[in-house]
């Protein structure tokens, strides 16, 4: 398979398109948790109940559809290859929990992969909208439209006092998790992030590193999301998150400007060294790749590197994950083989960029 063809298949819209504030915000996600009233939660439900839920969703797809979002495809977890599942996890379309611990699970996907509906994960239904850039209100609106559509056919578990009932009490009420993925190298380089994270936590929001365990963030990418789901409206939750995210954007921008003023040549050196590593290495571990990709992306955003597409970070961060590498290779790879593959894929992708420029000239 050629890389171009593979990319065409592999890249979802949130990875390839540019959205608002996409120099800092990579993607926006809204997730709504819902449950059928008449069935037990996935914590306890029987195999038969799980099957019924999937059958109901299949029936729903056959009889109605949401024109606006295009046709949807239903994929069942027990019918998928392990590698296929892993790729969906790496693209953030399904959760690790659905892939690993939900044998009765399934997922509904739209063609552009902006919308995925997980079935029989921790809750019966999890609606997820994943948009490029900072688009909280658009994503919320899309999620609401899908919720309205489902709700006109399904009786969801709802309580006047507690709102939408979810299997875990941390999600009860609105069932919403709004999250924004941000690239914050400026705040890391100026060592401000350690000070900022506790402040954000105090506002009822959570900061996580992407793919990283604990607070360690791979490639300076952080995910900011709401913790509280009860007592506030969906709009208020998104507005509060938006407030913090806009603050972070302006702080990141001023950190970048401060870096340009105080250590211009050092920064330029760092950016081009990383570009050098990516264009020339033959073996690269995911950590190093993530660090270099972050530097290169910063270089593009700050104008040190010209004529390279911005989405290269979003794309390569995902494509260099183990599942994707193995899918591209067409089979299982051992860790050291992955590192070789990863280096090759990155080199090839960068070559595509420079050929594109030559073509334009």
């Amino acid at each position, binding site marked *: 398979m050629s890389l171009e063809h593979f990319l065409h298949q592999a890249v979802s819209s949130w990875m390839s398109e540019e959205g608002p504030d996409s120099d800092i915000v990579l993607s926006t996600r809204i997730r709504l948790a819902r*449950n059928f*009233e008449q*069935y*037990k*939660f996935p*914590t*306890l439900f029987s195999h038969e109940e799980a099957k019924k839920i999937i059958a109901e969703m299949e029936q729903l797809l056959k009889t109605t559809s949401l024109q606006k979002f295009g046709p949807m495809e239903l994929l069942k977890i027990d019918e998928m290859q392990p590698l296929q599942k892993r790729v969906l996890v790496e693209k953030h379309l399904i959760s690790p929990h659905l892939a690993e611990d939900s044998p009765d699970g399934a997922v509904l996907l739209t063609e552009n992969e902006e919308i995925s509906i997980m079935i029989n994960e*921790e809750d019966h239904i999890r609606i997820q909208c994943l948009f490029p850039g900072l688009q909280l209100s658009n994503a919320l609106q899309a999620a*609401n439209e899908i*919720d*309205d559509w489902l*709700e*006109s056919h399904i*009786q*969801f*578990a*709802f*309580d*006047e*006092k*507690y*709102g*939408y*009932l979810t*299997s*875990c*009490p*941390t999600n*009860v*009420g*609105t069932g*919403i998790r709004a999250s924004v993925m941000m690239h914050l190298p400026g705040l890391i380089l100026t060592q401000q992030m*350690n000070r900022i994270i*506790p402040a954000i936590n105090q506002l*009822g929001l959570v900061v996580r590193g992407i793919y990283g365990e*604990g*607070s360690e963030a791979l490639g300076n990418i952080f995910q900011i999301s709401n*913790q*509280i*789901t*009860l*007592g*506030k*409206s*969906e709009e208020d*939750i998104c507005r509060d998150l938006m407030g913090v995210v806009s603050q972070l954007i302006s702080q990141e921008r001023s950190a970048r400007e401060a870096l340009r003023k105080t250590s211009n040549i050092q920064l330029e050196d760092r950016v081009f060294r990383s570009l050098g590593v990516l264009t020339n290495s033959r073996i690269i571990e995911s950590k190093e790749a993530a660090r270099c990709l972050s530097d290169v992306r910063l270089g593009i955003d700050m104008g040190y590197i010209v004529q390279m597409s911005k989405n290269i970070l979003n794309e390569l961060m995902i494509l260099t994950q183990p599942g994707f590498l193995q899918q591209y290779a067409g089979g299982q790879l051992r860790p050291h083989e992955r590192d070789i593959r990863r280096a090759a894929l990155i080199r090839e992708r960068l070559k595509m960029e420079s050929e594109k420029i030559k073509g334009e000239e």
Partner: protein
Amino acid sequence: MICQECNQRPAALHFTKIVNGEKTEVNLCEVCAQEKSEMFMFSGQSGFNFNNLLAGLLKIDPSFQKPSQSPFQQEEVLHCGHCSMTFPQFLKLGKFGCAHCYETFKDQLQPVLRRLHGGNFSHNGKIPKRIGGDLHLRKQIDELKVSLQECIQHEEFEKAAKIRDEIRSMERKLAGNVEGGK
């Protein structure tokens, strides 16, 4: 912030202990916290996750402890009539078995929800359309009743009369909805 025990790793757990009015702040990394876990009542389990913490929140709730302290009668274990999940099971999993569990365990749940959701314990967001109509009306009526009381306290009787009429007309509408629904 650096862990105060090892002075190496970043602190992941932050506690404020208040013993007899004396406040002590504790900041530990996960490794040291695990070593010291007994001190912090986190049982002996390796690696705590959200569910352990949730269980912790529930266990220290006095309303839950009382019944088990009575040694004379054998208390029936509280369980959900629909999915038969017991309270200890919920503590272990941190997840409910079905929608009815919220009703079954409501006495234990309220303080937990407050702690999980920043003091909130009732829903304030989207309402499904099918049950929405009446609920919206009732919420509006409740709000109007509050402002009616305020007006009376401030002796703004003209305004109060208007609000009273509004409440009446809404209540009529609500009654009409209920009959219509039948």
